[in-house]
C-alpha cells in the first residue's frame, strides 16, 4: 500500500510504496492527480508517485527520468540521490524509467516566463515557485533548456533522504535500538557495534514505515559526493561498445527499415513506384506511411538500396525555392503586424536616437542541422493490439501520445522504453521518428522493425535551427551606449513543433513564441534607452529546438552589436560591458574570463581576441576566443570560458559540457549552413555539412563560478557565445566585420 504522507517540501512530497520484495521512494505532487508509472498496477486509483529510488533484495536502482544524450545527467541525478541515501555510485543501477507525466520538468516551463533570470523581484520569484503547476498539466517530461539539474536538485536529494531515514526506522524496529544510534554508510544501516544491515535486506519492510518528519537535507559543507567529480555511470559501457542506443535494439525476427521523406520539406507524396525495389534481393516491402516511404529489408543496407530504386512523385514545396527567398520572407517580418513580443522597452529609444549619430547594422544566420552522431532511429513491435517502442527521445510522455495517435490505438496500449541517445541537441525532442516507427510497426504487425534514417535524410529533411535576421540601431555617448534598438526575426519554433505534434500542448500561431527573442531581451545590461523586439516570420522550412535555441542566433546578434558599439565608443569591450552590467554574478564571469585569458596583456604578434557574454538559461557565461593568422587561414588558438551555475555538482562534467557547448557553437560559426536550391536542401552528409574535427578543436580552459542564486545546468550555455566571440576576434585580427554566419563563407579558416 502506498503511504502518501507528510514530507512536504516546497510543493512536492516524498512518498513510498511497496513493490515486489522491496520499496520505491518517489515524489508526488499534491496539486494534480498524475498517472503513476510503477505503482499503477499495485494500487489502482491511488495517487501518483514519481519513482526515484527502488530498493529490493536484488539491489538499489536510481530512476533518472531524463534523457541521457551525453550531458551526463544520469550520473548527476544519481549523485543527488546517493548523497543523501549514503550509497556509492558504483553500487547502484541507473534506469531511465517509463514515460510518465509524473516526471514533469518544472525547469523547462520557467524559461517561458517573462522575467529575466536575474530578476529576483517578488513577482518573478512567485512565478518560479508556481512553475510546477503548468508543467504538470502540460505533461512535460522534457529534457531540454539545460533544466534537468535545476528541476531535480531538491527532489532527488529529498527522495534519498526520506529513503535513508525510512530504512533506519526499519532497522530500529528490527533491532530495538533508537534511531539516533544508527548510522548509514555505503548502502547499509550501521549499528553501534559495527554490524551492517544492508538496505537490500531492510527494503521489504520499508513501505510499512511512516516518518514523522521530513528529513532535513544535508548542508553543502557536509557533501561527500556532490561537488566532487564522479565517474560517469555510463562510461564503461560507452567505452566498450556495450551501450545500447535505439539503433542497437535487436529482436528475434527483426527486419530493418529505412525512411525516405520528401525532399520538399513539409510536402506530401503524390505517388511512387516501388516495383523495381520490390524485386531486389532481401527486400520485404515498400510502405507508404503518408508523409514518407519506408523500405523494409533483411538489412539496413538492402533497405537503403531499395529506396534508391523507388521512383517518387513528390508534392512541390510551398516555400521559396532558394535561400535568398527565405531571407526575403524573414526580412519582410520586421513590421508591426509580425511583432511577436517587445519584452524590453526602457526609456524612449526613438527620442534618444533622433538627432544622434546612429550606428546600424544587420546580421544573418542560416538554417542549421543538428547532425547528431546517431541518425534518428527507433525500434517497434506491434502485436495483439499493443505497441512497444524503443527509442532515445527527449520527451517520452509526448512520444507515447504521438505513437498512439499515429498507430490509431489508445495510449495505454503503448509501451515506450527510452534508450541512450546518440546525441540530442534538440533534434530528439521532435516526434517524427516516433510517429513514423509507429506507422511502420502497425503495417508490419507481428514483425519487430528497426527504423533508421540515413544520414542523408537526417541532414536534408530537417527540422532545423531557424534562419534568422537581427538588426540594431544604436547611439553611444561618453563611452557607453545610451540608446539601443535591437530586433530579431525568425520563423516560430513553437508553432512548427505544435503542428508536427511535438509539444505537450498546442501553441497556436497567435501566441507569442518566447524562443524568438530568447536571450536578447533579458540580458543584464542597463542601458538608458533599450528596446528589444521579436518578429515572427511566416512559416518556411520546419524549424525546431537546436542546442541553446533562440540564444544560438540572438547572442550572436547582441554580442557582435556590443563589440561594434565598443569600437564606436573607443572602449575596451570588456570594460564597456562591465560598466553596463547590473548583475553581480554576470560581472564576475566577465572578470573571471578576463583574468583567465590575461586580457590586460596584448596577445602575441599575429593573434587577436574577441569576447562575448550571455545570460543563457539562467547561467551567466562569458568567453574569450583568441585567433591566430596562419598561412592556411585563421586558426582558433584558444578559448577561455567562465560560467556561473549557482551550485556546481560535478566539476569534471561541467568542464566537459562547457567545452562541448563551445565547440558546438564554433562548428556552426565556422562552417555549418543549410541552404536551398530548387526547393531542396543542398547539404546531405558530413562532407558538405562539416562538423568540427579534432584538428580544428582549440584548447578550451573553463572556470565554474557559484555566485548566481539558482542552480543551473550547463549543457547549452557554452554554445551561444562562441560565434560572436569568434567574429569579434576575427574583427580584431583583420578589421573585417563579418555579419553573416558561417564566418567561413567570408574568410578562410585553417
Amino acid at each position, binding site marked *: 500500500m502506498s503511504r502518501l504522507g507528510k514530507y512536504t517540501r516546497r510543493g512536492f512530497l516524498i512518498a513510498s510504496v511497496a513493490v515486489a520484495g522491496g520499496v520505491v521512494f518517489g515524489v508526488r505532487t499534491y496539486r494534480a492527480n498524475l498517472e503513476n508509472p510503477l505503482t499503477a498496477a499495485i494500487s489502482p486509483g491511488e495517487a501518483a508517485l514519481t519513482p526515484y529510488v527502488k530498493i529490493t533484495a536484488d539491489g538499489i536502482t536510481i530512476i533518472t527520468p531524463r534523457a541521457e544524450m551525453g550531458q551526463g545527467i544520469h550520473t548527476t541525478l544519481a549523485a543527488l540521490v546517493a548523497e543523501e541515501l549514503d550509497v556509492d555510485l558504483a553500487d547502484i543501477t541507473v534506469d531511465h524509467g517509463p514515460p510518465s507525466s509524473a516526471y514533469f520538468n518544472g525547469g523547462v516551463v520557467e524559461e517561458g516566463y517573462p522575467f529575466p533570470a536575474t530578476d529576483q523581484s517578488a513577482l518573478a520569484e512567485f512565478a518560479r515557485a508556481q512553475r510546477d503547476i503548468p508543467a504538470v498539466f502540460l505533461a512535460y517530461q522534457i529534457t531540454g533548456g539545460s533544466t534537468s539539474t535545476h528541476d531535480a536538485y531538491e527532489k532527488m536529494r529529498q527522495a534519498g533522504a526520506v529513503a535513508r531515514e525510512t530504512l533506519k526506522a526499519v532497522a530500529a524496529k528490527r533491532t530495538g535500538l533508537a534511531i539516533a544510534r544508527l548510522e548509514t554508510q555505503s548502502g547499509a544501516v550501521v549499528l553501534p557495534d559495527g554490524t551492517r544491515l544492508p538496505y537490500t535486506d531492510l527494503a521489504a519492510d520499508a513501505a510499512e514505515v511512516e516518518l514523522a518528519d521530513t528529513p532535513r537535507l544535508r548542508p553543502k559543507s557536509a557533501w561527500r559526493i556532490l561537488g566532487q567529480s564522479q565517474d560517469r555511470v555510463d562510461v564503461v559501457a560507452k567505452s566498450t561498445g556495450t551501450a545500447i542506443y535505439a539503433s542497437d535494439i535487436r529482436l528475434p525476427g527483426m527486419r530493418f527499415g529505412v525512411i525516405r521523406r520528401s525532399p520538399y520539406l513539409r510536402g506530401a507524396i503524390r505517388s511512387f513506384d516501388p516495383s523495381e525495389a520490390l524485386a531486389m534481393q532481401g527486400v520485404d516491402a515498400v510502405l507508404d506511411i503518408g508523409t514518407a516511404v519506408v523500405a523494409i529489408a533483411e538489412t539496413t*543496407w538492402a533497405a537503403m538500396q531499395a529506396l534508391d530504386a523507388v521512383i517518387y512523385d513528390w508534392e512541390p514545396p510551398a516555400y521559396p525555392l532558394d535561400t535568398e527567398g527565405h531571407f526575403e520572407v524573414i526580412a519582410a517580418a520586421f513590421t508591426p503586424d509580425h511583432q511577436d513580443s517587445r519584452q524590453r522597452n526602457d526609456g524612449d529609444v526613438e527620442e534618444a536616437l533622433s538627432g544622434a549619430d546612429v550606428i546600424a547594422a544587420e546580421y544573418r544566420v542560416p538554417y542549421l542541422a543538428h547532425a547528431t552522431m546517431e541518425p534518428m532511429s527507433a525500434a517497434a513491435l506491434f502485436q495483439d493490439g499493443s505497441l512497444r517502442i524503443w527509442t532515445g527521445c527527449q520527451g517520452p510522455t509526448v512520444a507515447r501520445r504521438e505513437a498512439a495517435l499515429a498507430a490509431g490505438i489508445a495510449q495505454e496500449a503503448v509501451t515506450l522504453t527510452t534508450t541512450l541517445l546518440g546525441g540530442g541537441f534538440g533534434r530528439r525532442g521532435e516526434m517524427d521518428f516516433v510517429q513514423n516507427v509507429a506507422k511502420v510497426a502497425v503495417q508490419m504487425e507481428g514483425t519487430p522493425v528497426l527504423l533508421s534514417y540515413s544520414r542523408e535524410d537526417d541532414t536534408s529533411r530537417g527540422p532545423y535551427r531557424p534562419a534568422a535576421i537581427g538588426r540594431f540601431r544604436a547611439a553611444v555617448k561618453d563611452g557607453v551606449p545610451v540608446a539601443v534598438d535591437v530586433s530579431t526575426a525568425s520563423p516560430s519554433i513553437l508553432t512548427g513543433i505544435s503542428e508536427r505534434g511535438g509539444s505537450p500542448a498546442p501553441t497556436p500561431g497567435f501566441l507569442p513564441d518566447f524562443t524568438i527573442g530568447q536571450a536578447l531581451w533579458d540580458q543584464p545590461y542597463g542601458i538608458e534607452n533599450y528596446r528589444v523586439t521579436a518578429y515572427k516570420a511566416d512559416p518556411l522550412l520546419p524549424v525546431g529546438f537546436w542546442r541553446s535555441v533562440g540564444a544560438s542566433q540572438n547572442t550572436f546578434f547582441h554580442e557582435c552589436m556590443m563589440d561594434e558599439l565598443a569600437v564606436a565608443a573607443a572602449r575596451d569591450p570588456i570594460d564597456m560591458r562591465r560598466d553596463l552590467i547590473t548583475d553581480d554574478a554576470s560581472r564576475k564571469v566577465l572578470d573571471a574570463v578576463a583574468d583567465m585569458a590575461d586580457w590586460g596583456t596584448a596577445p602575441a604578434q599575429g593573434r587577436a581576441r574577441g569576447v562575448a557574454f550571455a545570460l543563457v538559461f539562467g547561467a551567466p557565461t562569458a568567453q574569450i576566443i583568441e585567433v591566430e593568422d596562419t598561412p592556411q587561414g585563421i586558426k582558433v588558438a584558444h578559448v577561455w570560458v567562465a560560467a556561473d551555475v549557482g551550485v556546481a555538482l560535478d566539476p569534471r562534467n561541467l568542464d566537459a559540457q562547457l567545452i562541448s557547448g563551445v565547440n558546438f557553437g564554433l562548428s556552426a560559426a565556422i562552417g555549418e549552413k543549410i541552404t536551398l536550391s530548387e526547393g531542396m536542401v543542398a547539404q546531405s552528409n*558530413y562532407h558538405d555539412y562539416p562538423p568540427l574535427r579534432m584538428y580544428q578543436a582549440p584548447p578550451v580552459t573553463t572556470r565554474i563560478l557559484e555566485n548566481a542564486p539558482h542552480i543551473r545546468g550547463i549543457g547549452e550555455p557554452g554554445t551561444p557565445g562562441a560565434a560572436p566571440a569568434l567574429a569579434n576576434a576575427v574583427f580584431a585580427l583583420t578589421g573585417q566585420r563579418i555579419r553573416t554566419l558561417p564566418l567561413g563563407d567570408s574568410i578562410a579558416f585553417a
Partner: protein
Amino acid sequence: MDITVNGTAYTLDLPDDTPLLWALRDGLGITGVKYGCGIAQCGACTVHIDGEAVRSCQVALADTWGEVTTIEGLGTPDALHVVQQAWIAHQVAQCGYCQSGQIMQAVDLLNTNPEPTDEEIDQAMSGNVCRCATYPRIRAAIHDAAIMMREA
C-alpha cells in the same frame, strides 16, 4: 560468405556487396560498430581487419580480406584494453556514439606510432567525428594510453 569476427567464424547469407558495417550490425547483431555517414566521413564504423583500422562502411563483405576485430573484440568491461582504460580514466565519452570508432582508430595509431605528438594525433584522428566534441579528452587519453602501452 565466411567471415571471422572477434575470433569466431561465421557464415553469412548476404549479398557480396553488403558493406561489412551492415553485415556486422544487421547480419550478426554485433552493434558496437556504428553507422554515422556511410561515406567514409565520420569514422564511427571503424573496425580492424588484420589489426589495421578500416571504415567498415567502405568494405564490401566479399572483399573482407582478413580477420575482423570490433570494439567488442578489443576488450570487455571485465577485461579492458589499455586504450579503453585510458578512455575511462579520462571520462571521454559523452553521448558515446562515436567512441567505438575513436577507440579503434586510436589503437591503430598507437600500434604504428607508440609516441604520437599532438599533431600526429590530430592527423590520425581527424577522420573521426565527435559531435559532442570530446576531442581534448581523446587527445589526453591517447597520450596516457601511449605511456601505459610503452610501460607494459
